[in-house]
């Protein structure tokens, strides 16, 4: 679990990952870095919950799990005057291909998450919270369990926190590794002990969530940004980034780069700069394409990527989405058909099977791409792929259908010639030009 030192160079602008070396994850280390001061401040000064939410709204913090929904606004949806139990859930079910940022928070800075959750619980009046950790990162779960024990021991969690009268009980929950459980309502189902099937919305979790109670679900990185916002003010956080795109963002850079890894940069940092931090494209090869926000987001050609900045609005304007911040770099040796085949298989495999378009459509997409890749493509296949994608996107209970459709549409949109070449010549285009 202890990685080489260079692995911890998250970048000079880090706030969440600042000062981490892979070994200083314990409570004492975190407190030495100024940890739990935000929680202490809130409890000591008895800051009204509404003010906490207002501060988060001011920060323009947007959900770091993929959808980019304004966090403060989401918190304000929780009914304040609700008589029964309200729940807070952390979505640490990091399963999006290319994304590996939450894992680092869980392993190397777990207390920042706990502090962020405690503050959120305070702001929304939740007495109980769950940290749902992806099934395939057992070490992260173990680390969180140990850190959780420390936090309880020190009185930062549990009954009557720091003598304030505020109580918050947090539990780590280890999932079983299904991608779909990263979808917030499937996560709730799974947390309740059922099969992870997304729920139809409305009702939204803020009114009908875990065990039917009002629930707020945020991503790990979102919660981790909260202590800094409280300590430095929402305005300061906003100024780190751009209007409507406050703060820093951890990007998981992977693929054909020299130094893959997590980089925490200010939102609005040019993509070229981020690529440079990661050491540039491997072997200095040309950048062919990039998926800027995790495998569910549309791919963009290299020339477009090199001209844009890394924030929610800029990427959206360019035709993709910032998503979870997984930047997948593809150089000119990559076959786009083969790449899409890998992605399509993933969504075929991970579809929960609940609703028709996704259950039936993901398999159809994968089989067509598989045929094209293996030299059995037909001329009409590309149009069928686009049409099937259209019939899936926006027609399903959750966003997995969209996630399966968007890559297909964007790969064909930007690299149609390469697909056509596969169909016409029954083989790959890439070796010819590399």
């Amino acid at each position, binding site marked *: 679990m202890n990685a080489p030192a260079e692995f911890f160079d998250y970048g000079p602008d880090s706030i969440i990952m600042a000062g981490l070396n892979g070994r200083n994850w314990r409570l004492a280390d975190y407190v030495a870095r100024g940890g739990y001061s935000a929680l202490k401040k809130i409890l000591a000064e008895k800051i009204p919950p509404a003010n906490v939410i207002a501060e988060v709204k001011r920060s323009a913090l947007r959900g770091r799990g993929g959808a980019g929904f304004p966090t403060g606004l989401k918190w304000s949806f929780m009914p304040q005057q609700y008589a029964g139990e309200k729940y807070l859930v952390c979505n640490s079910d990091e399963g999006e291909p290319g994304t590996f940022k939450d894992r680092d928070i869980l392993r190397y800075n777990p207390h920042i998450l706990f502090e962020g959750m405690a503050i959120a619980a305070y702001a929304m009046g939740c007495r109980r919270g769950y940290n749902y950790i992806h099934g395939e990162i057992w070490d992260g779960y173990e680390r969180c369990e140990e850190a959780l024990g420390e936090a309880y021991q020190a009185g930062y969690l549990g009954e009557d926190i720091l003598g304030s009268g505020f109580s918050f009980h947090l539990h780590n929950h280890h999932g079983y590794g*299904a991608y*779909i459980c990263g979808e917030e309502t499937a996560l709730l189902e799974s947390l309740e002990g059922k*099969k992870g099937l997304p729920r*139809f919305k*409305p009702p939204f979790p803020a009114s009908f969530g875990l065990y039917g109670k009002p629930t707020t679900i945020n991503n790990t990185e979102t919660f981790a940004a909260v202590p800094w916002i409280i300590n430095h003010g929402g305005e300061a956080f906003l100024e780190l980034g751009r209007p409507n795109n406050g703060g820093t963002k951890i990007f998981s850079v992977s693929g054909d780069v020299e130094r893959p890894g997590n980089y925490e940069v200010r939102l609005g940092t040019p993509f070229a700069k981020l690529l440079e931090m990661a050491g540039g494209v491997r072997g200095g090869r040309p950048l062919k394409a990039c998926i800027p926000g995790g495998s569910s987001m549309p791919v963009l050609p290299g020339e477009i990527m090199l001209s844009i900045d890394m924030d929610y609005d800029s990427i959206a304007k360019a035709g993709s989405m910032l998503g979870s911040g997984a930047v997948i770099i593809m150089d000119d040796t990559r076959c786009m058909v083969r790449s899409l085949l890998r992605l399509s298989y993933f969504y*075929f*495999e*991970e*579809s*929960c*099977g*609940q*609703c*028709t*378009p*996704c*259950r*039936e*459509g*993901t*398999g*159809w997409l994968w*089989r*067509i791409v598989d*045929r094209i890749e293996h030299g059995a493509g*037909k001329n009409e296949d590309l149009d*069928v792929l686009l*049409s099937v994608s*259209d*019939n899936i996107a*926006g*027609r*399903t*209970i959750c966003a997995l259908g969209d996630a399966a459709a968007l890559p297909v549409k964007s790969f064909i949109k930007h690299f149609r010639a390469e697909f056509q070449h596969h169909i016409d010549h029954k083989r790959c285009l890439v070796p010819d030009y590399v």
Partner: protein
Amino acid sequence: MTTLNLEVDGQAVQVPGGSTVMDAAHKLGIYVPHFCWHNKLSIAANCRMCLVQVEKAPKPLPACATPASEGMKVWTHSAPAVEAQKGVMEFLLINHPLDCPICDQGGECQLQDLAVGYGASNSRYQEPKRVVFNKNLGPLISTDMTRCIHCTRCVRFGQEIAGVMELGMIGRGEHAEIITFVGRTVDSELSGNVIDLCPVGALTSKPFRYSARTWELARRRSVSPHDSLGSNLVVQTKNDRVMRVVPLENEAINECWLSDRDRFSYEGLNSEDRLTRPMLKRDGQWVETDWQAALEHVVREIRRIRERDGAEAIGALVSPHSTLEEMHLAQKFMRGLGSENIDYRLRQSDFSADGEREGAAWLGMSITEFAALDRVLVVGSFLRKDQPLLAHRLRQMGKKGAHFALVHSADDELLLKLAHKLIVAPSALPRALAEIAAAAATAAGVAVPAALAAVEPSPGAREIAAALASGTRRGVFLGSFADWHPRASQLHALAAAIAEFTGAKLGFFTEAANSVGGTVAGAYPRKSGLHAAAMLADPRKAYLLLQTDPELDSADPARTRAALAAAEFVVALSPFQSAGAAHAHVLLPVAPFTETAGTYINCEGRAQAFNGVVPPLGQTRPAWKVLRVLGSLLGLPGFDYDSIEAVRNELPSADEIGDWLSNATHVPIEAPMAPDEANGLERVADVPIYATDPLVRRATSLQKTRDAKAPAARMSAATLGRLNLAEGAAVRVRQGGGEAMLTALLDPGVPEGCVRVAAAHPATRTLGPMFGPIAVEGV
């Protein structure tokens, strides 16, 4: 409640708050294509077929799950909506086998029907199709799982209606499939409803499989002849043969459901055992004869015995599953002969309330009113097996917060959340009720009946009394087990007292399809006549048996056998050869419910008339016609009917039946007997769900279900220990001079000191009464 104004397909509509777009469309009579949605099940929104266009929504929304909102504009058949619906239809069809020509669902398939409107003529899908292995769901439901479209209606039915999740969906994505829980069969007594619910041919009827196409079938209305709910049926026939039974929707009775007994018992109609010609026993041999000879023989014998021994030497035993008209003519026939000896209460053992009652025992309310109760006490009922759909109603009431209590002698799984239960030996039932009555009186601040002055209520009894009184719509119900109990009149009186003290209504879960009709028709001794038990205890010279297997339908098979064996003359009017064949001298083939017109009065006092759906088989004749001819041949007055309407005109009309219903009793409450400390064993007898009447006992597929397993001697671990028996040991059970060889089984739900041995089964027909002492020994 708020009212929402919205517009669907350009038409304005108002719906109450909380409605969905689907509700709004239905209110306008607009059909939105769908598969997973069903008005009795929770919303799954998984098939996506009902996607519609909604103003301001960026994408199509499922009508079934989208809440209606003020000012909403919806288009269900606009170009974007239809495009979305067609897209979903294409997905549904790509992996569907399209084997309609060999699919039993063909012609009545929702997928097939909607594919006509929304499917393409050619498939764009060129890839291999999915194959899903079939599952063994038991003898009633056939599977072709490749056809499944994963709507999960069957899964939700189990969870929400049947109360047990026997089917579930495992696997993800394309590998998702419906399976049974760890490979078991589907054993719910309501399982057949998933056949109706399945919108494709994945779940079809096993008994019906490959026997007819739906468009070849004629459809006729009828009424179930089994339990007292009176479920409405559509009987489907081909070539004068009943091929299948499905529910006829009646929200006030069976909703859209049927119990498996109602659905699959039709197989008995086509049984090999059907009697098709009158038969006479000559020198111990059965010989076929014609109606003329058979009827003349019957008339001769009855006349001879009446002249020699008097009319009271003749008795009639009538099944409570007979029609109202049959019962009426049977009693008219007997009374015409001069005998009061007639009874339909064949399993009853306590007749001490005769003369102390005012009318026919009934539910005490309509089924609709029953379904709105919030506190229910049930006394002596194998609820799920006796009244499958009333148990379902209770299950739904429980979801709305109703509290249930049960006082009974068997702790079976009811799939209901019981707030309280008292499970005691049958002999202790009066005492248990006495305690509740005393507690209820004390709690209500009224005088405890003098006979109960010495009764000290247990904490459990107090809780039941308090819980019952705490509701706003309360009911106390006596089940068949209480009705058959040797102290039934006391149980009735005590239940009436409990109802009075707690402000509850008193009702009966009456036993059979026409138990209420039996009283209305007067098919019981009014004055000096002998009731069912007395006719057997004091054997008659001649018996008339109507629609009954006398031993299996009786409170005491051993005594019934002895009485019939000793009789000089027994005439059995039955659709089945083996019914009464052992004892009868003449067998007259009479119509089952599908081959005659008739009327059943259900537990809520609703008279439901029906017509025959197929012509009588062979020389079978409707029993009312046979009785009419017998009456005429004997010269009895008033038997010159020319139609069943003429018979009906002598009976109370549907509107008048209310006057005949009453649960009042004048039987005084007695001090309950002290518990019997003797070391003897007591019998607890149930009538298994597929053993209730002659028809269902001959339904072959039902007889292969788990519910039809051969009876065992079931007892608690302590009782087994006391008898030095291991579970699974062969035992000899002795009772009433008879004995049966059974297997000892552990059943923690049987009270201490009791042995549960099912009645109405050939394996236990050698035994005596359903209640009382029983001996068990290892062999």
